[in-house]
């Protein structure tokens, strides 16, 4: 299963669902996660005291054991992210390990977290399959002395030290609007090709794109419709065809999902619309390379998963070495990626998505 920004399972990272989940979880945390009932955890809890003060000049500890726990092993997206993590761990001289379930179900990560906790792992970097289901196990691991960094998909905020977010919903929406606006010259009809009608993250991005389009500088752009390809290649292909038939004056299509973007590009590249109708969205360089080469797509975006893993590993090392505690406003350096500041709710944002064009696409392979 390819990881696509459009699939709901892959990342409830934005929007309404996260909002409600967080609200719900806050309530849960107040009752369940904060006070554990298992006595033996409390003896070791001192190690994970969030009130400890940070020492920004503390050296990165040597030989930190860092484990990456993706949603699912053998998933190309997480393979790239974890490789970024491995590179970072080698930079600071730690021990890298990847572990995880072969299927991305809600609770499948729990026994792996428990195992890492048993193995006295210093840093756990996890992309949570479910914000709540991993919570108890993560709490246990923290009590046993581990520092927990979530990346790509957050757990309940109370169960981890930091969340490394690949991009904010606002950043994604703004980048999409900027890209399409540039490509159609700031004027004309556009359509969105989304995943499923109930994909929370997609809907959040689309809503923010609509807000962005209301700004005066985008007055010439009209969003005529949102089509749904259900993240299926065939359906997305047909929907693209349908869009062009229904809206003969269509100037551009935005598809913020990797499946949709690739299918739309395949359709356009085989028709007279190639180069005439602009296409952009979220996709992976490997998927889009040929369409950038043949002129169907000028530019598209996605965060770089390797950077995401890199940042997660450094964040974990900074935590485990006492450079940061996870409090808002603290800063730390993540190797070549530079300096990052911890924002509200213990979140670190990687930055705006990387824009891929003809010039830079060959620098990436994922």
């Amino acid at each position: 299963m390819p990881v696509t920004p459009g699939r709901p399972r892959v990342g409830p990272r934005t929007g309404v669902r996260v909002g409600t989940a967080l609200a719900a979880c806050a309530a849960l945390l107040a009752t369940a996660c904060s006070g554990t009932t298992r006595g033996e955890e409390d003896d070791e809890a001192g190690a994970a005291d969030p009130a400890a003060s940070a020492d920004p000049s503390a050296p990165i500890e040597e030989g930190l054991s860092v484990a990456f726990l993706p949603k699912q092993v053998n998933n190309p997206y997480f393979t790239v992210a974890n490789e970024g993590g491995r590179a970072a761990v080698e930079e600071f001289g730690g021990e890298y390990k990847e572990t995880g379930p072969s299927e991305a179900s809600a609770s499948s990560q729990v026994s792996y977290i428990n195992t890492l906790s048993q193995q006295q792992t210093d840093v756990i970097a996890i992309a949570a399959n479910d914000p709540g289901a991993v919570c108890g196990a993560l709490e246990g691991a923290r009590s046993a002395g581990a520092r927990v960094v979530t990346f790509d998909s957050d757990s309940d905020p109370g169960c981890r030290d930091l969340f490394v977010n690949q991009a904010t919903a606002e950043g994604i929406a703004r980048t999409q609007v900027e890209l399409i606006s540039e490509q159609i010259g700031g004027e004309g009809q556009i359509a969105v090709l989304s995943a499923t009608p109930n994909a929370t993250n997609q809907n959040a991005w689309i809503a923010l794109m609509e807000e962005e389009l209301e700004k005066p500088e985008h007055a010439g752009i009209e969003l005529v419709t949102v089509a749904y390809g259900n993240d299926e290649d065939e359906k997305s292909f047909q929907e693209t065809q349908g869009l062009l038939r229904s809206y003969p004056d269509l100037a551009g299509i935005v598809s913020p999902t990797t499946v949709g973007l690739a299918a739309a590009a395949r359709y356009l590249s085989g028709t007279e619309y190639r180069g005439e109708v602009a296409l952009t969205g979220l996709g992976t360089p490997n998927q889009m390379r040929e369409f950038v080469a043949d002129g169907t797509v000028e530019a598209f975006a996605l965060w770089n998963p390797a950077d995401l893993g890199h940042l997660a590993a450094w964040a974990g090392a900074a935590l485990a070495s006492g450079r940061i505690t996870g409090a808002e406003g603290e800063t730390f350096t993540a190797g070549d990626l530079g300096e990052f500041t911890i924002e509200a709710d213990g979140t670190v944002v990687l930055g705006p998505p990387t824009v891929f064009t003809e010039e830079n696409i060959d620098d990436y392979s994922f």
Partner: protein
Amino acid sequence: MAHDTLRARPRDPRAAGAGGGRAGALLRRWDTAVVLALVAVVVGAALLVDGFATGRNAEFLLLDAVAIGLVALPVTLIVVTGEIDLSVASTLGLCSAVMGQLWLSGWPLELIVPAAVALGAVLGAVNGLFVTGFGLPSLAVTIGTLAAYRGLAFVVLGDRAVADFPGDWTDAAISTVPGGALPWAMVATALLAAGFGVVLHATPFGRELFALGSNAEAARFSGVAVRRHKFWLFVACGAVSGLAGVYWTLRYASARADNGEGLELAVVAAVLLGGVSIFGGRGTLLGVCAGVLLLGALRNALQLADVPSDTLDIVTGSLLIVSVVAPNAVARLRARRTRARPPSGPGAPGAPAPGRRPSPAPPSGERNP
């Protein structure tokens, strides 16, 4: 051929309840072998794998085994009758989703829990109705409901997760007996297992289940209420799957439509590894309990030894195949040896062992595929 296989049967390593007083016969029994394998894995892992022999790890291992263990109990009884229920994990998921939805709509958990179990029983009754009422093969029926119940779960809850269950309930699901690494949930599972064990091995009903699995026609002629027995087994299986759904939801503090996805395979693996014949008619609940713990311990130890999850799946799958193939292979081997050295006198392998299978059904031939 029938004669040869009949001769082999008393020495069949899966023969339940064989050779009461003889240590040799006891050792040859499949469930004894599974118990020994369990002990070997636990001792081996304790010596070789860092972090295995700790209270916390035992707690993790047992918590992970509860859901599989629960569902394996009724599935054992169903497989003994020669049927199967593959919809258990989807039943678990649907009950979990409904639990979440009811919680969202403001029901108290005191009502939700029995409602979830009752729903499980209803879902099991649907299976039972199709199998016994319409005479359809349970494999086909429960593969159908496997998909249908999972689909319904997504209709009920979508891809949402309901996580705001009260802390004292979710804590109760993972709490342990004071001072020990033994989760209360495992104590409850063990009690339920004892109950199922008594039903299967010490009641006329249980004996009739074995008879039914050996030869349904013969059992019917002997007056066994074949259809009614099977129907109620499916109802019980659904109810226990619902209960497992309640446990799952509270343990992970997360009601989701995809909860327990794929669990049916682990359950069937544990049941077969525990020595229940997939063709019905034989098996013990003790063997199944050992099978559940063996798979759990193996998984836990291999995870601690940093064996990748793909390899882990291969190990589980291989064990499953071995547990289906080995007893048949051993039986055939023995049959060949017996033929070479003709038996004499009473109690020899040729004669049916009295009391070995306390069933009203006449002995049937080895049910080779």
